[in-house]
């Protein structure tokens, strides 16, 4: 076991990790940040997406030790300290972009990374970007809609409802 230190959601954090400890396990079990979810063991589902140094990463695909010294952002750090949701979180609520909530942290973190690189993505660009995030509840309709809305585009024009 070695000590691993990083900045998580703007605060210094450290804990013990084995060489094989995944970042997802470290966040959940060592730091108690259980908002990052683990939905598979083949890096397919995306429930564990966090940002490492500003880049979206599947935290089950990275060792905790690799994040030594990094700036890590998780779902727990997305809302304002008073609980006010950020634009993407609010859009997910406004457009019913979540049901059971299990894939949601990864979806929100992926959406944030997408909008950082591509502030006005088309529907097709959103769908393609979300290839690495599985949702079993929503059929993706309201997730795509929420991301369109969060990017300031008119989601009400979308068919259905």
């Amino acid at each position: 076991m070695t000590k691993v230190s990083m900045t998580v959601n703007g605060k210094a954090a450290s804990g013990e990790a084995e060489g094989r400890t995944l970042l997802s396990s470290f966040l959940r079990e060592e730091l108690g940040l259980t908002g990052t979810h683990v939905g598979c063991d083949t890096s397919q589902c995306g429930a564990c997406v966090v940002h490492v140094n500003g880049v979206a990463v599947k935290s089950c695909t990275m060792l905790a030790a690799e994040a030594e010294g990094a700036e890590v952002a998780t779902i727990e750090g997305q809302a304002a300290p008073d609980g006010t949701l950020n634009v993407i979180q609010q859009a997910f609520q406004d457009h019913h972009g979540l049901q059971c909530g299990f894939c949601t942290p990864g979806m929100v973190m992926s959406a944030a990374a997408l909008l950082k690189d591509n502030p006005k993505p088309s529907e097709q660009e959103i769908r393609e970007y979300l290839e690495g995030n599985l949702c079993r509840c929503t059929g993706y309709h309201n997730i795509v809609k929420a991301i369109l809305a969060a990017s300031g585009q008119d989601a009400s024009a979308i068919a259905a409802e």
Partner: protein
Amino acid sequence: MPKDSGIGASPKRREDARFLTGTGNYTDDINLNGQAYVHFLRSDMAHGKLNGVDTSIAAEMPGVVRIFTGVDFEGVGGIPCGWQVTDRHGEVMQEPAHPVLAQGKVRHVGEAIAAVVAETPDQARNAAEAIELDIEELPAVVDMKAALAEGSTKVHDDLTSNLCYDWGFVEENKGAVDEAFANAAHVTTLELVNNRLVANPMEPRVAVGDFNRATGDSTLYTTSQNPHVIRLLMGAFVLGIPEHKLRVIAPDVGGGFGSKIFHYAEEAFCTFAAKAVNRPVKWTSSRSEAFVSDAHGRDHVTKIELALDAANNFTALRTDTHANMGAYLSTFAPSVPTWLHGTLMAGNYRTPLIYVNVKAVFTNTVPVDAYRGAGRPEATFQLERVIDKAARELGVDPIALRRQNFITEFPYATPVAVEYDTGDYNATMDKLEEIADLAGFAARRAESEAKGKLRGLGVNCYIEACGIAPSNLVGQLGARAGLYESATVRVNATGGLVVMTGSHSHGQGHETSFPQVIAEMIGIDESMVEIVHGDTANTPMGMGTYGSRSLAVGGSAMVRATEKIIAKTKKIAAHLMEAAEADIELKDGQFSVAGTDKSVAWGDVTLAAYVPHNYPLEEIEPGLEETAFYDPANFTYPAGAYACEVEVDPDTGKVSIERFAAADDFGNIVNPMIVDGQVHGGLGQGIGQALLEAAVYNDDGQLLSASFMDYAMPRADDLPFYQVDHSCQTPCTHNPLGVKGCGEAGAIGSPPAVVNAVVDALQSAGKDVTHVDMPLSPSRVWAAMQG
């Protein structure tokens, strides 16, 4: 103007605040002081004689607390089956023992053989790898028809064969059905496969067992859709723990879709082991384990025949289905191909004579049980495919053929034992034609053709039966449980309410929609109502959430309990205003005396109930808390019409969904936003079944599609925006809310629409293709096009 509160409004979901900020409380987020971790050693062989399990080396590995094998569970009950089907000869089904850990034999890849309890998950896994197994491999039974052949290897040596039951429905109609076929002007026959699926809720299963030696109480935290059912089955049949010493908690649950209804061996193991090692014991399934240990869904092979007269009226329907049970009977497995399938074979149509035969078969595969729709998708798929095929054979419009045969008068008693209370199938078809813009299809097809693509349109109807009940009827059909639902409504002194429901939310949004109903009934703000669910210690005995039953059954129980509350508060209000009880009206949270200006507020009355100074103590008790158990008189029958437009790439066989429209009749709607979401999710799963998903076994009983690398889950770019509408509303006639249930419709109604559309596309190019089995992968579609 849409309403902003109460029934029919779409308030934002209150559960979202925690799910969006990473503060949900899922079972894997629960860690108890001193907990140990479980790793199950699972069979990698489909069928074998288990001669020995040597744990001597593993037991000495670092961190090992204890290793359990089948021997530790001799004398402990097996995992029970909750439904006993009686076959067409009056014999009860063959019901094999289902041990917690394998005893004597392994019968499917993934069956748990041993369990290591250790200080850390890695130590448990390492030690499991050091367990030495002596297994003599036996031939695997995989194909259902081969399993029934004379001389087949038996999955269970103590049963007479691999046949669980041979069910006929309605057996007395068989002769008349055969006669109708002999006299038919036209018979359409179709053989098809309803592909085996894996439910794959995004949250894998987790169980945490805890035992309090001081009190003798056991607690199980588990990813369940129905904690009371788990408490009853595990306590009474497996571990011998009475309910008052066993608490089951299902906290935030990350999706279920049926797969978290059932009582699983891992739950019983963790509860048992926590007592045995005297510390909390936690198991978290990996996704790889989930694929080989969660109950699968569907897996029917069917031959269906439709008889028509010279005027194209349906005269009879006959089906022959083989239904895979897997290696053991999961909790509700026997009911799925029978009472949840045969009873739906009338669909939306006036077919006077129906006979359904189902042979349920044991194989060396993971047990198969209910998955979103459960029996109803299988019924709908075969019926709507054979009707489509008949229309094409007869050269008539598939929509017109359906309309001609629609049931139009209600109540309608089908020849398969159920009575539809209400519906309007022409209305949903009219709505579908409008929202799907069917009139514009020809132009869209021309556009696709100009791009070198084949465009097809598939339309179908569906009916489902939700809120399965009443209990006395399902008992006669073999259910070993009641199918009521419960609610306790507790009003606090200052007027706020807590509803403790026996149903369970794992994505459906009860915490938001249930308060809308109470707010409507009393005329108070929704924020005054809190919903408690998922813990047997603080909710009344309930049957949980599945089969689209939460609002229709659980919501009705809540209404009944609230009616009792309102009746009592009116008595109190009458006393406070010195008026006759019959003159008291409750509106907008105010009690008033009819025809006067006297009134008291809701909060004044609730306070009087708990501070009964000025109170009719001689007539009624203080306090305001009421419980109701609601046992429905009948199923509810949501129905609708769906349309799918596909483009097929003739060079590759790749299918893309271009448009999808769903017109549903769910009766009354409490929260339209949530209903839309339920339909979207069902459509995603149904389209997934039609285009992508398949649990595939090879002849050795190895599951080839056992990870998200191999099992094609629908992704965002596989699916379109959906056009959904639920403005056609024929309220259910027998529950107090007039609601029917919406959770499964999308998954039931969409697969035939997709397949009908692909067949239409291929036929438009002159291909002689009448059917392609799901999933419609590019290779299958391309092969079909080559003839």
